[in-house]
């Protein structure tokens, strides 16, 4: 792809990478309510809309519930729509998250992972987005600012092919407020990748309809069946679109990322920016001759069961590191990974680690400690707390 030569590299914070992704996607309607650590996304987009840099409507609202309501409506009206939030804001949207899925509005939302209150905390933790697991939204986790920009563009493509709302997730501060070099692609290339948005049931004044109809038990279930089918389709679409993206933009993403796994006996499973730390630690362990690798989960919904099984089957031990917790059970990625591996051949023992809640740092040494702890243990445990003072 020759067009790529016209790209420009710039240093961007993760939140600005989102904004540039939104701009390249030619979003038409934005509605958002400020919340740390998301605020600079909506500020940047408001700025872009005000100056005309981005030809979109920015709808100011009084709450996140209204923000998501506005973009669901605009999406169903046939406009490419975007919102962004974090933590409490996402929790407030909960009702409308189900609505977006049920009405099949391919809205894209960026959620900046932030711990929930109380106790009040603005730092990163994945519980906010993972708690919305069953709302029917696609969820894609990111490791770097470049990936954030790329995934924002990809999210529209995927969402609009399967008519499912999509959440792009990045870590508070570690990504949102940290600068990294980011390549901003030429608009023509993005336009070629991402065609204008159309919804088959879009509002049409000549053919009026009300979206969100009543469905009796007779066929409610059929609508739900279709949503599940769309999720299954989304898995295929994700693969296709990441392939095409790699061809056009030179960056390859997959449902799960594999790092130093070829001959690995031990696998560390995690998601988000902690993967970078884990990779760094694993490289050190490799120098010591340890056969260990990293599997980073990028696509959380739909859950890539096949890929997870392919990667993890036959390993000696697996440790899942969760920066989140489902109280009364365990870390959520751990839960999901275990469930995916149930019934798989050559299933390894899987150990659940919980670390870094409320933005506590997860340092390379912590990863090495976890690896060594896993190696030492014989019986898997659901929750092995890392670094908690008891």
């Amino acid at each position, binding site marked *: 792809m020759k067009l790529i030569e016209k790209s420009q590299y710039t240093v961007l914070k993760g939140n600005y990478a989102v904004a540039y992704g939104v701009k390249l996607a030619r979003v038409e309607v934005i509605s958002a309510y400020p919340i740390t650590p998301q605020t600079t996304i909506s500020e940047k987009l408001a700025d872009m809309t005000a100056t005309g840099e981005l030809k979109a409507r920015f709808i100011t609202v009084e709450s996140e519930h209204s923000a998501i309501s506005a973009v669901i409506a605009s999406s169903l009206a046939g406009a490419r729509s975007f919102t962004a939030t974090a933590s409490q804001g996402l929790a407030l949207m909960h009702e409308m998250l189900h609505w977006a899925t049920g*009405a099949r509005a391919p809205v894209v939302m960026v959620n900046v992972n932030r711990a929930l209150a109380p106790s009040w905390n603005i730092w990163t933790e994945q519980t906010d987005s993972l708690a919305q697991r069953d709302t029917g939204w696609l969820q894609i986790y990111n490791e770097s600012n470049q990936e954030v920009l790329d995934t924002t563009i990809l999210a529209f493509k995927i969402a609009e092919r399967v008519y499912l709302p999509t959440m792009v997730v990045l870590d508070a501060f570690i990504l949102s407020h940290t600068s990294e070099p980011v390549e901003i692609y030429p608009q023509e290339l993005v336009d070629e990748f991402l065609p204008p948005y159309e*919804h088959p*049931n879009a509002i049409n004044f000549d053919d009026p309809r009300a*979206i*969100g*109809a*009543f469905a009796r038990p007779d066929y409610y279930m*059929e*609508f739900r069946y*279709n949503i599940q089918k769309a999720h299954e389709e989304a898995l295929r679409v994700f693969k296709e679109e990441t392939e095409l993206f790699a061809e056009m933009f030179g960056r390859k993403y997959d449902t799960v990322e594999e790092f130093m796994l070829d001959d690995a006996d031990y696998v560390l499973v995690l998601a988000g920016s902690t993967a970078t730390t884990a990779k760094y630690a694993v490289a050190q362990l490799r120098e010591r001759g340890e056969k260990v690798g990293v599997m980073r989960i990028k696509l959380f919904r739909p859950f890539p069961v096949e890929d997870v099984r392919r990667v993890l089957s036959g390993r000696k031990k697996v440790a899942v590191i969760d920066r989140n917790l489902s109280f009364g059970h365990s870390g959520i990625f751990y839960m999901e990974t275990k469930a995916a591996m149930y019934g798989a051949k050559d299933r390894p023992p899987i150990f659940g680690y919980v670390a870094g809640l409320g933005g506590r740092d997860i340092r390379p040494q912590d990863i090495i400690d976890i690896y060594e702890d896993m190696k030492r243990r014989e019986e898997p445990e659901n929750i092995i707390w890392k670094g908690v003072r008891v």
Partner: protein
Amino acid sequence: MAKKYDFKASELPISPMTLTTTLENPTGGWRSFKPVIKNKTAPCTATCPTKVLIPHFIDSLVKGDLDMAANLLHRNNPFPSITGRLCHAPCELPCNRGKYDEPISIKQLERFVGDYYLDRKGKPPRRETGKRVAIVGGGLAGMSAAYYLRSKGHEVVIYDRNPNLGGYLRYYVPEYRLPLAVLDAEVGALERMGVKFVLNTEVGRDIGFEELKEKYDAVILAHGSSIPYTPDFPGVDLLKSGWDLMKEVREGARPKVSGKVAVLGNGYTAFEVARVLRRLGADPFVVYPTAKIRIPFSDREIFTLAEEEGVKFFFAKVPLKADRRDGKVILTVAEWDGKAVVPATEREMEFEEVFLAYEGTADHGFLPDTIRSNGTLKADRRSGETPLEGVFVAGESVSGPSPVVNVIYSGRSVAAAVDAYLRGRTYTPENMPEVVGYERIVTDYFPKAPRVPEMRLSPAERIHSLTREEVLGYTQELAMKEAERCFNCGFCNACGNCYVFCPDYTIKWVHGRPKVDYEYCKGCGVCSEECPRGVIDMVKEREF
């Protein structure tokens, strides 16, 4: 038998949707209160004696339709160019905007619109009724009655003893306050409408009252209160007439007056005579019977102007005696407590001249005894009906000295009564709709903005001219700016807020106005809450 629901999942649309219409569910049945879009009125209109449609005409002004603004204004006030200069503007006192920042400058807006349309006013009526009405006296009351009766299609003939119409306004009010050109234009409008004038003709001298009654279907007596009142105290005959002075000055004379002069009076005329004297170079003192705080509101403006110009006042004083000594007038005055002279307060004062400037009284000498009683006329205050069939009374001839707007209203209401009489109907006074108070104004919609000051001469500039108009009013730009401040209380100006806010789209937009669709309106009341000007009421459907 076909299955009731045989859709397969693959046959369903992507989004669950209703394809027919939700109109099948007439949700209006859920309502216990219904929004009613009402024609209400504003405190300004309610206070205005002649009920000028103030929020209405200002709205047209804001929308740039100046012709419509003039039209609405003329509905209840035919002479806005006159009231825009002379009215004491009681409308501005209760203005809801005054409770927010400053009241709307209604008088100046009225003047602007009146002047804008002045030369085009006056069209003959579309249909003639064939009925004939005589009006005795071509002052403001007669002119006002003539305007409305003629516009109803009646033939109107005004009899006046003077060579031209206008009465007190033409022969006494100074040029700096009301330019003759304005009055001439108003008279011209009446002429264009087809009102006939019989001038230099005094009823009772040149033509008899009985003759008028026979010749016409109705007669309106609007001869005013044009006889200056002269108090009774020793030496009063030594004093000069302020009325004559005003008249001379109006006609162009500039008599020499200088030094300390006194003006005796009890109202507008006294203040105006003092101002004329100030301009002629004298140092006038007004001897006024009440305390300063008791000056009626209708005279406040002219009092303030006089005070600014250096006119001095002796309040709560009455003259007891006048004498002439060495070419000077020695005036004896005493304190007046409102009922009687306060004992031992007499004091002598020396003036170059003393002018009598009391308000006028009516001369009913030419009228039969049947409608007179104790120097006044037996007439209904509003309809002007008298015991004589077909004879009506309007204006100051029955009310005594009154502000211009009250006189205009009298002409207008009597015209309505006469019109009803000529058509064989019963006269019913107009009803005032509900007044919207400040508590119903959603001030969030109105940014604070100070009142736009009109252009006017400074007191120093004013006292140097007897002809240059003292208040210059608004330019169109200033008028528009001021008009935009108006809340338009109680008047639906089709702002569209209810239409935008209705969560159920049950407020429709029909011919540029909101209309509630009661089939579907659930009565949530959002429209009523968001109406910036209190037009929409929530009315109980029925008793609980």
